[in-house]
């Protein structure tokens, strides 16, 4: 027996998707514009993409790059962010540097990146890496900063070395915030996975999308967008499971009492 509330909650994503598609359909009908196809046209193009073996290989290649870029970014950014959060010196060393490097559009640096990394995988993984690391570093940074000092003192008094404190106290204490960074990172990973293939590409989901864009095949463009959106939902759902398992201790005890309904 499932409670009605549960049914509503389960159905909400589906309803939201249907709602979005409907809004899109109405908007595109109203605009009558070739480069903005109706939702129906886009949905109709999905089987063509997913039925094509080559497209599937393309999409899998993109996902592989994304996984590698995301993995490296998380492994590098969390320690860096935590260190920045706990050490004023490290923070003032890296913070301006990061703020100088990150705003530079990677697309503009392509000629130089190509010089050293070529036009293949490495370049794209680098772009994804940069996209993911941005939120992970800053959320880890803030999370580590907000760790209650007396918790660290307790750890120090138990004989934990500074490094042990970083791993065994700062990391778990900041985990909820770090995971928020990772979640934003996941979103950006999907976006950069596509946009990294904008200028140069061999295979990948972005390949399909930008080719279609160049050719004015807008139903394919939007079908691809839908597919990326669907991948987003799936990855997010998986991530949410992992997150819930890791930070159950931090969930608020009572519901927010501010419903206006």
């Amino acid at each position, binding site marked *: 027996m499932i409670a009605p509330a549960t049914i509503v909650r389960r159905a909400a994503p589906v309803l939201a998707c249907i709602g979005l598609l409907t809004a899109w359909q109405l908007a595109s009908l109203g605009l009558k514009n070739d480069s903005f196809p109706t939702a129906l046209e886009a949905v109709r193009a999905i089987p063509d993409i997913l039925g094509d073996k080559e497209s599937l290989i393309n999409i899998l290649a993109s996902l592989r790059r994304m996984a590698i870029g995301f993995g490296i970014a998380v492994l590098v950014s969390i320690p860096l962010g935590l260190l920045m959060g706990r050490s004023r010196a490290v923070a003032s060393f890296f913070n301006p540097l990061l703020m100088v490097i990150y705003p530079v559009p990677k697309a503009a640096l392509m*000629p130089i990146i190509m010089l050293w990394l070529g036009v293949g995988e490495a370049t794209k993984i680098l772009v994804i890496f940069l996209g993911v690391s941005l939120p992970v570093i800053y959320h880890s940074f803030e999370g580590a900063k907000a760790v209650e000092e007396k918790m660290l003192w307790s750890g120090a008094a138990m004989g934990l070395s500074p490094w042990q404190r970083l791993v065994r106290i700062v990391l778990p204490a900041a985990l909820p915030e770090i995971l928020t960074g990772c979640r934003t990172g996941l979103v950006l990973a999907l976006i950069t996975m596509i946009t990294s293939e904008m200028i140069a590409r061999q295979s990948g989901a972005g390949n399909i999308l930008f080719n279609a864009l160049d050719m004015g095949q807008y139903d394919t463009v939007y079908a691809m967008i839908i597919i990326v959106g669907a991948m987003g939902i799936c990855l997010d759902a998986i991530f949410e499971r992992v997150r819930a398992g890791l930070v159950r201790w931090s969930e608020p005890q009572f519901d927010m009492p501010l419903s206006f309904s």
Partner: protein
Amino acid sequence: QQTIRVGWTIPAEESKYWMMRRPAEFPDIGKTYNIEWTQFQGTAPMTQALAAGALDCATQAPLSLANGVVGGNLKAYIVAQHVFEKPGGFSVYWAVMDDSPIKTIADLKGKTVGISVIGGGTQGPFNLLLKQNGVDPAKDIKLVEVGFAVSEDALRQGRVDAVNMNQPFAARAEAKGGTRKLFSLSQAMPNIVHILEACRADFVDKNPELVKAYVRDITSGMKKALANREETLKVVNEVLKAPLPVLETYLLKDNDFGRDPGAAPNFPAIQKMLDIYAETGMLPKLDVAQFKHPTIVAPLQ
């Protein structure tokens, strides 16, 4: 077995598409040498990639290649040619709406005009034409960048008063009707070369046999493309993912660009274009001879 890194783009390199999709038809590909294909958005990034040594050969437009030579210290040979404008065939043109008050080039004064790439290959002849008709391209019009794919929509939406058209979008727009050709590039120059194949000079000098084999395959690819339209349509469809009915309306028909049967570069025409660019101030004066390799140039058998 050596590998050659090739940059390509869409939509009009049929011989390379054949090499990519039907490698079995070419005795050397995959056997005596390999090709690593990378697709780019436009020719300018490929020039950068060539200059950075990330590519060995790539599709180029005369202007982008010349830019690479002038600004990027690039040394390259033009080894083949993909498409050009032939009299009676398709020429990139600027369209206006049927009911537009713009009747002549001179009427463009004070209007918003779309062009695919500001400072791109078409702008030289375009500027020339405007000047010839008493319009200062820098002051009298508002130039905006409108990619070919959205040209038609931008025009119909009234975002621009005139916009450039290219295949296959031109064919699609014409089929729908409501637009009219204002002028085309052929009015400035009859045999404009749009895209050609260029290889880095140091690469060619080091691997002459390899490049020779590559150019040979481009030549034979062009032959196959022209000989078997049915199959070419299929190949292009696989690469562009554009539906066959759309391709059917123009590809390799009279309303398409011209293709040399042996993919031979038309050096005099290229020189003419370089001259136009020099005249409109986009480039210093250049001699096309520096792009010529004595032996390695299509057609090669």
